[in-house]
């Protein structure tokens, strides 16, 4: 008997009480979703910007290595999307489009189509996500309802920049991944 059979038959040999799978109610959290989402992103140490605020920040910073997969900011790109993710090592800014955001925690859903390369939102130094302000959901329940049966090889709920508190519980932004997250609500 191989291990697969051994494990499955060990489980099947037990008489286990029937336990029904509970239904999940559609919990909601109504209110001003833009306000709620903005607060959540800020709590996660990210920042929500308007289009003009973003443009002002971007042009003042003078980045030279920028990849943009957002049709709204296509002209800001200085580099095409490489084939090999290892070429992202010194990337300064990645601009992506998020599918939707969740107000209760600031989580933004992205799939392979939005990411180009799966390493992109992690390897870049600064991450910018463009999000339609009409595409905000109240809680994770509505979020998963929206994803439903959509099929992507990789999907990501991203809620902030890379962070850690592993040294004496002091919060530090910019651990191994992106050092900042800016969400541009359009």
């Amino acid at each position, binding site marked *: 008997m191989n*291990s697969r059979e051994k494990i499955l038959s060990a*489980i099947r040999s037990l008489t*286990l009480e029937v336990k029904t*799978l509970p239904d999940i109610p559609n*919990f909601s959290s109504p209110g001003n979703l833009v306000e709620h989402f903005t607060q959540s992103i800020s709590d996660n140490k990210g920042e929500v910007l308007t289009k003009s605020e973003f443009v002002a920040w971007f042009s003042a910073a003078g980045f030279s290595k920028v990849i943009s997969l957002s049709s709204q900011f296509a002209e800001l790109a200085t580099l095409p999307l490489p084939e090999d993710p290892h070429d992202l090592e010194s990337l300064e800014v990645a601009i992506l489009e998020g599918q939707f955001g969740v107000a209760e925690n600031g989580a933004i859903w992205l799939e392979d189509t939005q990411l180009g390369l799966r390493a992109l939102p992690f390897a870049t130094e600064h991450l910018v996500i463009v999000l339609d302000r009409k595409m905000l959901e109240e809680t994770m329940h509505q979020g998963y309802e929206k*994803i439903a049966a959509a099929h992507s090889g990789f999907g*990501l*709920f991203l809620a902030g920049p890379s962070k850690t508190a592993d*040294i004496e519980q002091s919060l530090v932004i910019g651990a*191994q991944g992106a050092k900042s997250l800016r969400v541009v609500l359009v």
Partner: protein
Amino acid sequence: MTHPENAAEFLKDAQKSKWHDETLWFVRDKRDKVSKGIPEWEQLRELASGIKDNVLANLANYLEEFERNAKKNGITVHWAADSEEHNRLVLEILKKQNCTAVVKSKSILTEECHLNPYLEKQGIEVVDTDLGERIVQFLNQPPSHIVLPAIHLKKSEISELFHEKLHTEKGNEDPVYLTQAARVHLREKFFGAKVAITGVNFGIAETGEFVVCTNEGNADMGVHLADVHIACMGIEKILPRRKDLAVFLRLLARSATGQPITNYNSHFRSPSPGKEIHIILVDNGRTAQLARNKFRSSLKCIRCGACMNTCPIYRRSGGFSYNSTVPGPIGSILSPGLDLKKHSSLPFASTLCGSCTDVCPVKINIHEQLYEWRQEVTKTHGDFAKGLSMKLANGIFKSPLAYKISGSLMRNALKSLPNSLIYHPLNIWGKNRNLPDAPKESFQQWYQKNRS
């Protein structure tokens, strides 16, 4: 060494152990605040508990469904009956890739299987990429907490360590500076690794996908740059439906650190073109625990660490005092199932106050199971030191006369006995405990005077 012996070691540095206690309580407090912002919090706990009960009751079916769907998505599925088989499977994949250096994100399962020393013996460099885990790896220590691996260390110790290992400035203890140094060091490892290992937070039977949650983004940095991703998953990590993730992701980070969600929640369904994903489904004692009626529900654990942060014993004795991969209250009900002899003191490392049960997001009755394990330990190992005094007490409480006499004797004795007798090594109740002042009269005497 038993838990009390190890705890005594930890308590020698009074200032540090006080900091440990207060810091974990602060995390517990953050959990309370953020959970109170969710009106349906208790309903979510109830749901999570119900979903996990259903998973355990139908585990074989769900595992098969998960395997079927994962395979359909192009993921290679392996099964490991125990830690040896798990480690061997990992090594085989690495050998096939001619891989001699691997990056690994946080996985308590690989700690449980002692994967690192196994691979290192085979000449493979393993780099733990979670900052806290990298710190303890540099020190040749296991994590002392499942969510906060280096919570037992002060920044001065980390500064000294990084000066030695990463050549940071001597004496620079700034967490931002130290984290930046680790970032540079770890990114070099990410960009050089061909294989990345991760744990698994949730595996979804319905879709065959699995979810990994981090705040640092280290799991994704490793996986997306490597050619091969090995995900190590305990068989109890299954959830039936994708939408169940809503319940669990709402509970996990809030319970763990008081954040509304971890910053990265990655759903792996199929490999990128030209790459490979392997998932190893590991038993290693889980089916045996499933067979134990009283302890089955311990398998519902989602490894949030909330029971550790709230536990008055864990906070004051430190994670290492448990000498178990998963420390704290939940570890004290999981580990005796793996090795009752080695972990026989753990069920006693509790006041049975029940705070662990109160904060558990999947409503495991942890303190009741601690009590049940005590019965198992006493059945198997017979008397502990407290046994003799308990027997004596039993005789005294049985006879009203003996009770009356011994009461007055004790009141006088406590006043006149020398400390050397009360705090004698044989009286373990005297250890680290001060006796209260003895009352002048018994309750009976007081009652007769005042109420009769």
